[in-house]
């Protein structure tokens, strides 16, 4: 069967099971947009290519399937560079197809030419410049295989216009042997001896902590993580990328560690004698000053990416492998050592001589008691952002998908939401991409139309990508956006208050410029404004009742509220600041 390269490309996406593509056409990708009209694939026309990338990320976050975005050459391609970098940092499977100028024009500074494979070389897991239409089915297969296996990540396929227009003879690779990837071997199961060593460390530990990262979610390992925690009785911290990987309502859940983590999660790690790092990467926002991080802890580090092992913290037992498979192997090893399901120890086995974790748990309970997350919503006082998050949480279904941008609102959302289900939290963790929330929420809603999707956004973030609400209105994607509008680039303001002697430099945004309600309405959304605590619940109820268009609520929140606890950048986690009374210059 003869097809054009463009037809082969769309057919290849169909063969991969792609249901939705986020994109925006242009000159060099024109041939590929024609067969979309005849395809089963739903195309969602974004208003800016960055929106396409983040929407595809949101889709991938909640479905586990690769997100797909398609844009044109030059500026279209460079506009999607930020989502690629974001996806690389957070290991999001993303397949981006870019148009390119014809092969004969490459290198001539042609109109809308940009060497996007070179630009994205360091921020994609791999990328391809297609030079022969005959290669398209194979390269698309390779792209999806690379994006979704091993440590997931973004890939880019750059297709010159003459390649799209050229004829090719259709085929479809049916086995991995037909792919040309001689250097790509994603690892899967762990080394048995190391898994056994890890299990023995677990049974010797007196103060163990499971340090669960985003890899748990990528490996679909939330179920076995719970089994491991319950069988061993080991408490679990869930990093910003792992919120929901272990239920917040579970008695063993300590919540989020790190710079704005809660006191107990941070301090339990500091005092631990064993850290089971599962799909986490010792990010600087988690460790604080590395040399003083968890000084007494032996480390078992499980990651599918061998380059993560020992990158930041030396692991006593490094295990390269898929989190789900390795945890299953650990459970088997624990069986062998006498720790069966339910945590019962077999007589005479190693598990029977296991240290009692009760003193450790008592210490943890004492910390939780003494240092809970706190804020105070005064009656008639300024609206506290934490109050908004808690009100939203209480007024929405438990499996609501929450999407955040980056900054104070993101931290409050992570701290005050109660994540009891995996894949209900979508945010930009590693890259910290402001403007992520609105387009990512759209992608999440497209991926899970059955679930309520709330974006919790900041006013600064919202202004970066709000135009995608036009996309949401036009495509009838009823996302809901809560803007925690404190009229500032709040996180930067917080740092200037605490560390720059309240010298506020270029952080003021104004509460009512733009007018968020009018802006929302102009984009086809319902717009609401909330200025007092009493108005919060009715507004949320109203928003929840709208299901045919997006809703935006402009919550006018207290500009002076800061995110606590806080470990100042570069400081030891031992020096955690619990609240304003301990902060310099705090109010």
């Amino acid at each position, binding site marked *: 069967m003869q097809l054009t390269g463009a037809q082969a490309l769309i057919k290849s996406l169909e063969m991969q099971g792609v249901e939705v593509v986020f994109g925006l056409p242009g000159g060099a990708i024109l041939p590929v947009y024609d067969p979309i009209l005849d395809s089963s694939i739903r195309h969602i026309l974004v208003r800016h290519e960055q929106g396409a990338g983040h929407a595809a990320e949101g889709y991938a976050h909640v479905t586990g399937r690769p997100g797909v975005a398609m844009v044109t050459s030059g500026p279209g391609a460079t506009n999607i560079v930020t989502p690629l970098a974001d996806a690389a940092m957070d290991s999001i499977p993303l397949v981006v197809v870019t148009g390119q100028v014809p092969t004969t024009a490459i290198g001539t500074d042609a109109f809308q030419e940009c060497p996007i494979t*070179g630009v994205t070389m360091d921020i994609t897991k791999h990328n391809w410049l297609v030079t022969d239409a005959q290669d398209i089915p194979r390269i698309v297969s390779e792209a999806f295989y690379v994006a979704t296996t091993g440590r997931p990540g973004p890939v880019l396929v750059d297709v010159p216009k003459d390649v799209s227009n050229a004829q090719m003879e259709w085929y479809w690779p049916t086995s991995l042997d037909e792919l040309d990837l001689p*250097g790509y071997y994603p690892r899967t199961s762990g080394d048995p001896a190391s898994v056994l060593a890890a299990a023995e460390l677990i049974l010797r530990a007196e103060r163990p902590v499971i340090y669960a990262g985003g890899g748990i979610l990528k490996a679909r390992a939330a179920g076995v993580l719970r089994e491991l925690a319950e069988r061993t009785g080991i408490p679990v911290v869930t990093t910003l990328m792992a919120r929901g990987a272990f239920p917040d309502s579970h008695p063993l859940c300590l919540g989020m560690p790190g710079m704005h983590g809660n006191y107990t999660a941070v301090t339990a790690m500091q005092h631990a004698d064993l850290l089971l790092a599962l799909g986490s990467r010792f990010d600087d926002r988690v460790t604080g000053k590395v040399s003083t991080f968890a000084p007494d802890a032996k480390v078992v580090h499980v990651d599918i990416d061998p380059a993560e092992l020992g990158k930041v913290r030396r692991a006593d037992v*490094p295990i390269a492998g898929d989190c789900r498979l390795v945890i299953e192997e650990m459970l088997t090893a624990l069986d062998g050592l006498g720790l069966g399901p339910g945590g019962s120890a077999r007589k005479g086995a190693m598990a029977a001589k296991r240290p009692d974790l009760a003193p450790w748990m008592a210490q943890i309970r004492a910390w939780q008691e003494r240092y809970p997350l706190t804020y105070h919503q005064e009656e008639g006082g300024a609206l506290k952002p934490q109050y908004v998050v808690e009100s939203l949480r209480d007024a929405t279904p438990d499996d609501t998908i929450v999407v955040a941008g980056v900054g104070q609102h993101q931290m409050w959302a992570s701290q005050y939401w109660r994540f009891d289900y995996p894949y209900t939290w979508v945010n930009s963790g590693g890259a910290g991409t402001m403007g992520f929330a609105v387009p990512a929420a759209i992608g999440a809603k497209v991926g899970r139309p059955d679930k309520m999707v709330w974006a919790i956004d900041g006013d600064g973030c919202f202004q970066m990508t709000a135009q995608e609400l036009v996309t949401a209105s036009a495509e009838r994607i009823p996302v809901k956006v809560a803007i925690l509008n404190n009229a500032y680039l709040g996180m930067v303001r917080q740092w200037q208050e605490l560390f720059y002697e309240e010298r506020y430099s270029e952080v003021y945004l104004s509460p009512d410029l733009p007018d968020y309600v009018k802006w929302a309405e102009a984009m086809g959304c319902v717009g609401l404004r909330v200025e007092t605590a009493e108005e919060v619940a009715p507004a949320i109820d109203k928003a929840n009742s709208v299901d045919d268009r997006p809703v935006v609520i402009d919550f006018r929140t207290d500009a002076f509220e800061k995110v606590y606890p806080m470990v100042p950048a570069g400081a030891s986690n031992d020096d955690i600041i619990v609240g304003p009374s301990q902060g310099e210059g705090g109010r």
Partner: protein
Amino acid sequence: MAPASTSTGAGAGGIRHHIVTVGVENKAGVLARVAGLFSRRGFNIFSLAVAPTDDERFSRITIVVDVESAPLEQIIRQLDKLVNVVSISELAPEEATERELLLATLQAGPVERGQVIQLVGVFEGKIVDVGRDAMTIMLAGAPSKIDDFENLIRPFGIIELQRTGRVALPKLERRAARLRSITGGAGGAGEDRSEAGAASTSDEAG
């Protein structure tokens, strides 16, 4: 024949020449990907040689880099992640057979010509071109020998000089025991190649 200039090094900080040989797919853009992992960390590549292997689908890149061991370990693991990279070995200089080629055009009129020919003879090099007032000479050998030779020909007046950068293969008699193979081949189940990890696991596992 020991490559003295490379096997010692700055010493104190652990900085020294490392030879990394990288087996890659012989495709466009692969060299840029490999080089990028060094440049993005601000490490200078001291020398670089690339050519197809006996199987022309693959090339071997020989990189000599001055870097401390710890960051190199990380670079090697990142190299391993490149889809186009098939295998990586780090060769300790004392465990490698290294060769390099030098071409030089010297100022050498009728008077100096004899001295140059003599010197080239001692080093077992070759005269590859002779002009009225200049000669082009070639020498292949261990990098230290090339260094020595370069110093000796300098007084004649170098018009142009080009070295290839070194290529290296592991020494045969120690190959099985000492080659520190970091990657390559089918990375099957449980094949954790972490050097630091393997070393440190043993004291816990016992």
